[in-house]
């Protein structure tokens, strides 16, 4: 995808650009809010990564001006630790996302992916999801694999729905915690791992092919190809 990175820290920008390029993306970089806004308004980007604190024009102001101009390019806001306040959260309610520094690069990639797909029209019908032979009917709350019904708890249903809507994508533990449980906190131990393995036991056990994969140190992926 085509990414605009607006970040004034040269070293950080260099690492990010390198990482994103090596992950197969095309990156343009602006060093301040002014240039960033100009590029965002003139270029065609799939997603914007911008630092909260920028010289010349504050990151959040930039987003507001972009929106005022009718651009709905998704934005991922990077904020320094402890700056995640209601203003940022209000911003993310509009379909964007934020990430507090320091963050893991894999987290950034996963969130970019999720942001860009979210902004595209849904390929799946809204009430019936299917990945390989796993099916989820949201109106009837019914799950089946290869035609065999599977009984899930309400929370497991929501977890599965999120994974299926992001099938083929990497989702991280924090993303799940935020999106499925609506919690922003550090659970200390890997409670999410336990939840995932419980779900995996229900949807994968007894079938030849596993659908729910763990990517060590990164997160999970629901995918028909391993």
């Amino acid at each position, binding site marked *: 995808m085509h990414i605009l990175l607006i970040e004034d820290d040269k070293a950080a920008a260099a690492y990010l650009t390198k990482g994103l390029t090596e992950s197969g993306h095309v990156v343009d970089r602006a060093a301040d809010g002014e240039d960033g806004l100009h590029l965002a308004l003139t270029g065609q980007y799939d997603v914007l990564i911008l630092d909260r604190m920028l010289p010349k024009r504050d990151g959040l102001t930039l987003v507001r001006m972009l929106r005022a101009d009718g651009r709905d390019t998704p934005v991922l806001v990077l904020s320094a*630790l*402890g700056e995640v*306040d*209601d203003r940022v959260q209000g911003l993310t309610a509009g379909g964007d996302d934020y990430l507090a520094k*320091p963050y*893991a690069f894999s987290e950034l990639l996963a969130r970019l992916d999720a942001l860009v797909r979210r902004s595209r029209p849904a390929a799946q019908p809204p009430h019936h999801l299917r990945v390989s032979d796993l099916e989820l009917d949201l109106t009837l709350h019914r799950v089946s694999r290869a035609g065999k019904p599977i009984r899930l708890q309400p*929370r497991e249903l929501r977890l599965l729905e999120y994974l299926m809507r992001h099938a083929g994508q990497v989702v991280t533990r924090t993303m799940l915690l935020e999106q499925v*449980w609506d*919690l*922003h*906190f*550090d*659970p*200390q*131990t890997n*409670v999410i791992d*336990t*939840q995932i393995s*419980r779900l995996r036991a229900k949807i994968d056990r007894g079938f030849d092919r596993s659908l729910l994969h763990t990517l060590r*140190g990164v997160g999970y992926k629901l995918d028909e190809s391993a």
Partner: protein
Amino acid sequence: MNLRRLLRTSAVRLALRYALFYVALIALALGLLYWSTSRFVDKQLAAGLHSTADALERARADLDHGEFDAMVQAELHAGRASKLHVLIANAKGVPLEGDLEGWPPGLSADNRVHNVQIEDDLIPGRSEDEDAYWPVLARRLPDGDRLLVAHGLDQAEDLLDFIQGTMIAILAVSLGLALGLGLLQGRALLARIDALIGTARSIGAGRLNRRIPLSGQDDEFDDLAGQLNAMLNRIQALMTGMRQVTDNVAHDLRRPLSRVRNLLDVTLIKARNSSEYREAIGQAIDDLDEIIRTFNALIEIAQAEAGSFRGDWGPVDLSALAAEMAELYGAQAEEQDRELDVVIQPGVAVTGNRHLLAQAIGNLLDNALKFSPQGTPLRLEMSAAGDRVRVAMRDQGPGIPPEEREHVQKRFVRLDTARTSPGSGLGLSLVAAVARLHSADLRLGDAGPGLIVSFEIERASGA
């Protein structure tokens, strides 16, 4: 304290203002007194002149010349002290009787009291300095002669002079008293303020343990000093806490940081194959992640203690949140063959920060799972009584001895029994900080057997 500062104090200014006001008031009252006294004196003088004139007129009609002359001399003699002068003259002003040498020019005999200057040469044997305006009564007698009676003013003037002197003395004394009292008050006020300023200055210079002395009078200054001292205590506690955090952060992060550095150093010593590099980098990332987690937890504690989460304040359905947390950690309890007993009163709301409350309950669950043996049951309770909501976590582990219960709430504190299990020693500190932020106290108790950790928050009104 110098005089200029003293004069600038509000007490002195107030005293000056009042002094001027009272002095003006006293001057007005004394002026009135003076005026009425002098009128009274004038009246008395006039009455005296009239009665003397009446007596002389009657005597002149009744007595023969010799007797009258003797009577006039007697009157004059009797009135010498009060400087009485009498003159009887014919219509042309030629003296017939009395002690004046002639009729004062321009004086009409209209039977009224006039203040007339009587020339010295009219009065025999009188020294010059007594020359003055005298009250004089002159009247026409039935036979065409004229009668003059005059009176010295000395006594009346003495009286008025005395009154004037007293007035000035009273004014001076009251002005002096007002000023003196004002200055005394100003000094007392300045002394109190100077104590405040002195303390503030030495605190400003870095001696944070200084406090403003109380006078013990329990007045508004003591109130102010008490409030300021309370504020200073809080600031000092925060500073100490901050310093402690910094020290602890330095201490706690130094080890993992140097571990990462050593790992990377050693990896670089000789050429290795790519899988060895990958492993080293992966290990470094894991170590750094642990450092970042510790760091984040510290910052969260610091922010909770500083109250900077207030922006995210709002109603929280604590029943639903506790149930969610129990469910989230329940899978882990199940994995450890434990029973997690969840007793939650539904529909209880509080006012607070949802994410922090989630973190606090999560940490309690996490601690219970970590520090009590596998297979033992756990219990999460949440119930409301009156306007209080109690959240309690029970385990059947080794518990914490009473003397350690305060201590373990501090940052980085880990009991010896817990050294081997993973963790940073920040979990319970964060719970305590979150509880304090929600005006609740974290309580650790004996669950007999095991540990019970609980806190009580105020229930949201109308819920």
